[in-house]
């Protein structure tokens, strides 16, 4: 037992084979037992994966290791020595760095300022910034992690933001790096870049702990993987000796179908038509430049693209949330006026439903009870009360129906929405938007951060809607998801549709190149082996 903080971050000669050893960790949040007697050993110089359903306790366990939460009981050994990690500063000093699921960045600071925050070496920041700039250049060269040090966080893409998080950890001399769902918001290209960085780290003898919902990633780069379920550690496996099906079954407790099963599309008449749309963002920067597209009944059109290329503004404009500069949106033959800040109501009235990209920021009021979210956007419908009054009973009944149909857990429509796990929050939104039998469904990032059990369910629901003759516009940065769900793929780059691909024939590489702004013909050429 050594409660004293070590002076230097760099661990000297490794005393033990294990970089991290957790024993009998317990953590409760009020009534929730988030970690139950968890044991976990992570070998130095390896990439160790952790998987588990939403709410299994992965983030909690890592937050304990990082000193952000304190365990109720249990011991932590770092490099074979028992440590009492009381706060994040302590963990950092022990060489543990963490990239949180929700980034811990100050949005209006520059990259450099975020990197030095908390690790400044003098009372004035100028020398720290200077040193950090040099150090970043070095790290960038070493790991090929390129970010503009003077960019402001809110102006750069999520992928870039994540690099900043990694740079933060490396700048502090992390020997063990924890990443909590790092690829949830990344494009395949960005994810690949990330993995290359992680491999470099491993090759240098550093240890990586990776939490993810994507078994493909586990199989691709981890050396070993631990499975958690309902607060308990189920099993730790050597990656090379297992397969995705086994992991999925351990995670969910049943067999999961890992690929999407869908029949051929049967397109009918055009239900959504977007013509020459031009849209600017809050700052007046034009983000959507003359986009035209159409979606027919019974087909799923996917929009692929690196995030930040205008997809969000396109979605917001089509769904009535954002005024267009010019152009038209026609839903079901009806042209929508998007002027005024209640355009979303008119879009809904025309038969359009919208699952927004960012459920917590937009699609839900997390402080509301579940039933209140079950009517969000449809509150004025006559079934929820006549005249000015809200028929609470009717709303709750409807919520209970939705919960049942989409298997939301816990099945409690009076629970505060924040207390549902991410996957279940997503189901609440889907249930609401799909439940009203819309003609057109717009879906943004439907499975971001959702566990594989839930992904399976959500994909099946989307396909069922298509087969029921609805027009579906799907935007996702998850190329896999687009490729397996969409009947047609449009690739968006710099505010324009730069190409169309057939998921059956186009290769991942080809689409990926188009996403990077390389023209379709060139991409087809280049992608050819």
């Amino acid at each position, binding site marked *: 037992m050594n409660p004293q903080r070590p002076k230097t971050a760099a661990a000297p000669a490794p005393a033990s084979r294990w970089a991290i050893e957790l024993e009998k960790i317990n953590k409760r949040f*009020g009534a929730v037992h988030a970690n139950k007697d968890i044991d976990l050993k992570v070998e130095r110089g390896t990439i160790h994966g952790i998987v588990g359903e939403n709410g299994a306790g992965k983030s909690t366990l890592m937050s304990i290791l990082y000193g952000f939460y304190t365990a*109720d009981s249990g011991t932590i050994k770092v490099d074979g020595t028992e440590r009492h990690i009381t706060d994040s500063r302590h963990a950092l000093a022990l060489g543990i760095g963490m990239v949180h699921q929700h980034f811990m960045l100050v949005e209006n600071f520059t990259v450099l300022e975020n990197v030095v925050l908390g690790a400044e070496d003098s009372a004035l920041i100028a020398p720290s910034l200077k040193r950090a700039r040099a150090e970043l250049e070095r790290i960038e060269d070493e790991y090929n992690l390129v970010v503009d040090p003077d960019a402001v966080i809110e102006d750069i893409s999520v992928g870039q933001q994540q690099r900043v998080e990694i740079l933060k950890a490396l700048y502090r001399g992390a020997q063990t790096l924890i990443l909590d769902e790092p690829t949830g918001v990344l494009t395949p290209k960005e994810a690949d870049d990330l993995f290359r960085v992680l491999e470099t780290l491993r090759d240098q003898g550093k240890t990586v702990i990776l939490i993810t919902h994507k078994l493909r990633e586990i199989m691709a780069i981890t050396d070993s993987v631990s499975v958690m379920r309902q607060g308990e550690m189920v099993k730790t496996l050597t990656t090379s000796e297992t397969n995705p099906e086994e992991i999925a079954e351990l995670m969910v407790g049943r067999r999961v179908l890992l690929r999407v099963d869908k029949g051929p599309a049967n397109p009918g008449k055009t239900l959504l038509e977007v013509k020459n749309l031009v849209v600017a963002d809050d700052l007046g920067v034009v983000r959507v430049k003359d986009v035209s597209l159409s979606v027919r009944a019974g087909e799923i059109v996917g929009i692929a693209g690196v995030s930040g290329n205008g997809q969000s503004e396109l979605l917001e404009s089509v769904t009535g949330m954002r005024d267009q500069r010019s152009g038209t949106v026609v839903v079901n033959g009806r042209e929508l006026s998007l002027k005024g800040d*209640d355009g*979303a109501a008119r879009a*809904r009235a025309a038969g359009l439903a919208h699952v927004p990209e960012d459920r917590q920021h*937009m699609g*839900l009021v997390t402080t509301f009870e579940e039933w209140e979210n079950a009517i969000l956007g449809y509150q004025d419908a006559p079934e929820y009360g006549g005249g000015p*009054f809200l028929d609470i009973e009717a709303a709750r009944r409807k919520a209970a129906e939705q919960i049942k149909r989409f298997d939301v857990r816990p099945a409690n429509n009076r629970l505060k929405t924040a207390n549902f796990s991410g996957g279940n929050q997503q189901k609440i939104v889907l249930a609401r938007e799909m439940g009203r039998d819309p003609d057109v469904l717009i879906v943004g990032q439907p499975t971001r951060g959702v566990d594989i059990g839930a992904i399976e369910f959500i994909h099946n629901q989307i396909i069922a809607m298509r087969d029921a003759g609805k027009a579906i516009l799907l935007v996702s940065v998850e190329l896999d998801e687009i490729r397996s769900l969409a009947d047609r793929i449009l690739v968006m780059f710099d505010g324009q549709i730069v190409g169309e691909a057939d998921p059956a024939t186009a290769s991942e590489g080809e689409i990926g190149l188009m996403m990077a702004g390389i023209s379709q013909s060139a991409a087809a050429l280049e992608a050819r082996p």
Partner: protein
Amino acid sequence: MSARTPLPRWADIVLLPLLNLALAFLVSGLVVLMVGENPLHAVQVIIYGAFGYGDGFGYTLYYATNFIFTGLAFAVAAHAGLFNIGGDGQAYVAGLGAIVIALALDQTHWLLAMPAAMIGAALVGGFWAFIPGYLQAKRGSHVVITTIMFNFIAAALMVYMINRVLKPATTMAPESATLAVGGRVPQLRQFFSFFGYSPVNLSIVVALLALVFVYVLVWHTKLGYALRTLGQNPSASRYAGMSNSRLIMIAMTISGALAGMVAINEVMGVQNRLVLDFVAGSGFVGIAVALMGRNHPVGILFAALLFGALYQGGQELQFVIPGVTREMIVVIQALVILFTGAMEGLFRPALERTFMLFSPEQKARAVSVSTAESES
């Protein structure tokens, strides 16, 4: 260990506030001691003064009436995420709406004059809040600044209106003409002699109705739902197709109209004319009332009663104990706000530990809930 069990509901809403109130009085007691008076006696006087006899209780209710209106005014805006600190000014200018109509109709009957003046006051008060709402919605001007400014502008406007327009030439004091009986709101004492000479009047019934109105509005109407959505997450309300700018203006207008009801209580119920500064800071007390009552009508009712009691009990103290000045009363009120409002968390950890220690069921409950939940 670090695991905490939430307090049982009754402890949370009854025991904790009582403990805080006791602490506030304890500290106030020290202040009373400073002027060489017996604090216990002082508490006794306050409680007796506020609740012990008809006149006193009537005054308590009269003050509470104002605080209910201004508390509700603040709360409605707060539910929509707006911090309306202009309740004072809104109530003040609403006096114009009330007096003009009341003077015009004071030869008729209060049954006509009162509702008409209520509409007048609501319109003027609502309008005074609508402008900051409009500026917030359309121009992005921060409602906190504009409502502060509108308080000052209201003060200047009212002095002008009272002195130059409404004041009869024969009167010296800056005040409007006096209302004839038909323009006055009946006093409760006309029905219950219990209330002695206290000025509590039918406005309190309006206040109680306003409590119900706000409860229904916020939790049982579509508008209320929209307001709360806006207040909790403006992106979500835009996503839901609600017009945020319209909601802001509506919320502010309702807020101002509620604040304007203070004018009915004061102008038609008590003064029987429009006098300078009749609001006397009620708008600001309303902020404290709403915050303490957690923006819920039931909470606001109790908080308003508490403040009414402090106002009236403090008065009594001034009459009974000569050393006590009106500033001491303000100090006591401030301490009550501090301890029951801002430092409400002071005893919570200790109380939670105590409950853990002494209540085995409580412990067992915590464990069983956790297993149930994690196995679901």
